[in-house]
């Protein structure tokens, strides 16, 4: 990325930025900081007071009778055949929020990659062992499959018992993290090609959108259910919630995996012998 390239924010000058040490900059006077803390302190006390004043207007703890939640507790299982009403809300009644949430995660992964990859040049022949010790390696090797299974189980039963695509997805991604502890960097690099995970992430995210479109095509409402509902309390229940749940699990798993991977790449660069930029 050359300075002065199209769309460049601030051109040409400050090419020596990365050389500038912390001591080259003017420090803010302690007086300025003290004033800031004093002003903030006074304002924060008042703000806290207003917030508490408002909070006392809420029904007292434990006496909540929100119509929305009560209604869904009453009709949720019957309408959606999902024994976990939270799951039914996440993937159906408020399934569109979850679509947004998927894409928040998706965008953050792309954003982090966009921010960090810009300056990353790792050469494959560099000595890149994380330098972990043997006991750590054993923990990783034994732990990874266990965590992977746990994650899949969490994801699978999301609409029956607590859990679901998000929790399962993060757990599956942590299995990937354990894999990193248990092997050398180079093997890890080979085992987990980022393009594959990019593809999985994109597939999971677009699957969620497309399942919504199928609902729109078949019954005129985006994300409407189009599968038979089944029996509550079993895996064969809840209609298209199951599909959405797995789409979310794929997306969240791959997204978190990529997120961890980006930060590993950064961590790796703190080892001696890594060529930078």
């Amino acid at each position, binding site marked *: 990325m050359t300075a002065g390239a199209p769309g460049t924010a601030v051109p040409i000058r400050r090419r020596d930025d990365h050389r500038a040490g912390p001591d080259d900059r003017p420090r803010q006077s302690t007086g300025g900081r003290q004033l800031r803390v004093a002003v903030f302190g006074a304002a924060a006390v008042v703000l806290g007071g207003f917030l508490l004043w408002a909070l006392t207007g809420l029904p007292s703890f434990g006496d909540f009778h929100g119509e929305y939640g009560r209604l869904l507790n009453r009709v949720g299982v019957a309408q959606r055949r999902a024994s976990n009403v939270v799951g039914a809300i996440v993937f159906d009644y408020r399934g569109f929020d979850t679509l947004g949430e998927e894409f928040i995660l998706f965008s953050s992964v792309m954003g982090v990659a966009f921010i960090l990859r810009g300056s990353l040049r790792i050469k494959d022949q560099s000595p890149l062992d994380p330098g972990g010790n043997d006991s750590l390696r054993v923990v990783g090797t034994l732990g990874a499959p266990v965590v992977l299974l746990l994650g899949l189980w969490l994801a699978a039963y999301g609409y029956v018992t*607590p859990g679901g695509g998000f929790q399962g997805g993060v757990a599956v991604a942590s299995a990937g993290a354990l894999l990193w502890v248990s092997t050398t960097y180079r093997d890890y690099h080979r085992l987990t090609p980022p393009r594959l995970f990019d593809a999985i992430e994109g597939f999971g995210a677009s699957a969620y959108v497309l399942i919504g479109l199928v609902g729109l095509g078949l019954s005129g409402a985006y994300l409407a259910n189009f599968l038979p509902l089944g029996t509550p309390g079993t895996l064969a229940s809840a209609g298209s919630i199951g599909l959405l749940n797995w789409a979310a699990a794929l997306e969240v798993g791959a997204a978190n995996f990529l997120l*961890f991977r980006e930060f590993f790449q*950064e961590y790796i660069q703190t080892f001696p012998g890594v060529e930078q930029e």
Partner: protein
Amino acid sequence: MNALEIVAFSAVMVLGVLVVLCREPVRQSLVNGIFGMALVVLFMVLQAPDVALSEIVVSTVAFPLILLATIARTRDRQRP
């Protein structure tokens, strides 16, 4: 409110304030992990198992992982 609830809320409050006051990043991420566990307990007490599960996976894996990597990367060090 019963005693369990009061204890769970108090733990969260004290630990949350400690996280803010702890300014050394490595120690802070440790305290933050404990704070996360306190939140998990609170969520269980509040009958929110789904949220507790996601807080577990987030505060035991995601947060420490990205935090420690960043701390290692941004530690002030003099490179030749």
